[in-house]
């Protein structure tokens, strides 16, 4: 029985690895078409992400918000919900954390806790509304979370210049003081000046906690049951509406944490007029990870590598940045289409058996 389980895990892993390889191959074709050497390109891409400790730190830091949004989407998926609103939840969670960080002058540990908590609450609040709408009126969460994205966008657009404005920059908030930043000196020094920050530890902890909740707890059992089969859950006496709302809130809280990691860890302030792309990349991360929380860690770091290595590839080759973006997008696209790859793997297996 053990053997079989390992085999089952392997299949997802194979599919994900194949997806990545296919993506890299597709990217290689693009590089060839634009007259660059793919081997050089990928060499520089990977070196850009890993060649020294600072870059390794940056790769992890780039991956941090993606871990959170990936977890957010994966958790929602597992409980039968499609959270497209991670971007908005993230933005609002990040806004809350920034607001707390700029408003309070507590000692750093206390302040960071307050900021993280407010990011959790902010993200959860932003997802609560689609959750309520779904539970109460059966409004599809895809629609309502997308709309919440824009509400978040405009709330932040208004609130940052109105309340957190710097001395003259209109497009971003005041800069967070060091005591309100997730960056800590020992980590920065350890990684030789990288902008890696405490967010990565929060992200790893979140992945472990989410995996634990989903697989080991009564709560996870209920939420997944509702996700897989709402009717059966109702039949068994599980409070379906409560579960939907709770799932959305947990997903939102995760995305909100991603906002804290992005705006108060990777950056020093929050910007207006931008929906963080990490919110949408979270969907791809989750797909590549087959919605497994631990898989999300790996997938997010892979994406982080692509994003952080891309610039070096760019600088070292004559691949124009736009093509580099296309290559990265292609890799992500292939990586995220594991459903197709899965069918392909199944077919190969069948063929082999048929012979």
């Amino acid at each position, binding site marked *: *029985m053990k053997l079989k389980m390992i085999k089952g895990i392997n299949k997802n892993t194979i599919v994900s690895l194949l997806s990545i390889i296919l993506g890299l191959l597709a990217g290689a074709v693009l590089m060839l078409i634009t007259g660059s050497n793919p081997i050089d390109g990928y060499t520089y891409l990977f070196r850009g992400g890993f060649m020294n400790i600072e870059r390794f730190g940056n790769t992890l830091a780039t991956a941090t918000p993606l871990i959170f949004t990936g977890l957010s989407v994966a958790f929602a998926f597992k409980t039968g919900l499609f959270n497209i609103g991670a971007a908005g939840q993230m933005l609002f969670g990040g806004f809350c954390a920034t607001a707390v960080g700029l408003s309070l002058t507590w000692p750093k540990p206390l302040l960071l806790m307050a900021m993280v908590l407010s990011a959790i609450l902010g993200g959860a609040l932003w997802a609560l509304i689609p959750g309520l709408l779904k539970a109460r009126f059966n409004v599809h969460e895809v629609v309502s979370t997308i709309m919440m994205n824009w509400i978040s966008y405009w709330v932040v657009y208004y609130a940052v210049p109105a309340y957190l404005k710097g001395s003259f920059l209109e497009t971003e908030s005041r800069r967070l003081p060091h005591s309100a930043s997730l960056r800590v000196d020992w980590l920065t020094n350890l990684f030789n000046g990288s902008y890696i920050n405490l967010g990565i530890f929060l992200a790893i902890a979140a992945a472990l906690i989410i995996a634990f909740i989903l697989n080991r707890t009564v709560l996870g059992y209920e939420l997944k049951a509702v996700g897989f089969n709402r009717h059966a859950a109702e039949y068994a006496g599980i409070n379906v509406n409560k579960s939907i709302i709770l799932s959305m809130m947990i997903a939102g809280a995760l995305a909100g944490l991603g906002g804290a990691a992005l705006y108060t860890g990777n950056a020093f302030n929050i910007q207006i007029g931008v929906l963080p792309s990490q919110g949408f990349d979270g969907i791809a991360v989750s797909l590549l990870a087959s919605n497994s929380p631990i898989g999300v860690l790996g997938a997010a770091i892979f994406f982080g590598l692509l994003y952080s290595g891309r610039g070096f590839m760019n600088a070292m080759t004559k691949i124009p940045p736009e093509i580099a973006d296309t290559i990265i997008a292609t890799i992500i696209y292939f990586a995220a289409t594991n459903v197709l790859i899965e069918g392909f793997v199944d077919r190969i297996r069948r063929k082999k058996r048929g012979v």
Partner: protein
Amino acid sequence: MEYVVEMLNIRKEFPGIVANDDITLNLKKGEILALLGENGAGKSTLMGILFGMNQPDSGSIRINGSEVQISNPNAANDLGIGMVHQHFKLVHNFTITENIILGIEPKAWLTIDIKAASKRIRELSELYGLNVDPDAKIEDVSVGMQQRVEILKMLYRNAEILIMDEPTAVLTPQEISELANIMKRLVSEGKSIILITHKLKEIKAVADRCTVIRRGKLIGTVDVATTSQEEMAEMMVGRQVSFKVDKEQQEAGEVVLKLEDISVLNSRKVMGLKNFSLEVRAGEIVGIAGVEGNGQTELVEAITGLRKAEAGRIFLKGKDITELPIRSRIRHGMAHIPEDRHKRGLVLDYTLEENMVLELYDCPPFSKNGLLNKADIRSYAEEIMKHFDVRSGQGAISVARSLSGGNQQKAIVGRELEQNPELLIAVQPTRGLDVGSIEYIHKRLVEQRSKGKAILLVSLELSEIFNLSDRIAIVSNGELVGVVDADKTSENEVGLMMTGIKRGERLEAQNDQRHK
């Protein structure tokens, strides 16, 4: 003798299970061959192989004498093989014509030549007596008509060999007899049919020969005319099967379930159940007889808490449970075998063990402080599987979806009975099951009765109601027509009452009630 289909020494293995083990099946031109077997015996796998959905591990297939490779359903279509699935694959807001031509639309320049298609469908319909209106929309026609559309789809694609997968499972008795006529018409026009079923009565009615498989192995092929139902049942199950359930006479005890004038809205927001009153006592089985959609669903959902009662009260062992949530009703000793095992009964993507604690996961020993205790869950599930003979590929960790229908149902029945409920609501507990499983489940229900538990049985099969019930309550159009003692009535009388006719007998029946 010339065979149109020869499947020779077919073997097919799935993880943990040999679905087909050296099975040989031959179909003659112009005959109806029944393929009989219990749920999970391997019928669907075998036919899936013939239709190109699965590839056999070994063995060969010949069509009209020449060996073929059927790699996908399209290849099967090209060979003149068509399949009518149990679950129809139709687009509901398309017309019948549009559904039939889907995928092979006749083109006139850039547009679809609907008229030509519609004309041809009309001709085919007349030739085979299908009585189909090509311009009607699927959503407006009956289930029986939808099935005929599926048949027409095959005929339109010039299928010579038709595979019909449990075609009667979804039909009313009238529709079943119509289907039988259609099938006879088809073979008289030269088509050949393989009928997958586990209903012996139907085999007797239409089939020429019958191939029986059991647990993936071929048992034999018999001539239907000269073989009795009992003999076929024994071939299928592997032992003698009794169609009659033995149950001892016993006095009913205290009232367990009491319904007082309950009224319930149906999903279209009109009263689906009106002023309904009924009592179910300890140690008795009360059957609810009625034509589908006459308030049974509303009744069951109101008792179990899935639906709100607009008026009236519901008592469980004297306690008013009208306002209680579902979970508390379960904790007060109510169990429910739901009508639709896929919709309500199981979380198909959960493992069997996870499904076995669907109502109990938050109780000790299955969880403590919010954490699941997987070891206890597994041993509990394995116990249920043993007690109720649930077979699966990978034991307790099999995904529920991978189980055959019969085993899924046995698992649900096991889960509900293992809670030792005071009141069991059993809705269509044997729907779609083979005789072996039916017999088994019936036995367990009667056993429950003998232990002094109350059972409310809802079934569309009158024979099941009569086999099990002590008393029968008849519903029609959301109202209680009457309650009769099972041994003082006949199927005929109950059948009439199901149509809503209240006759003299009804008065007698009620008098009997009062004497009790």
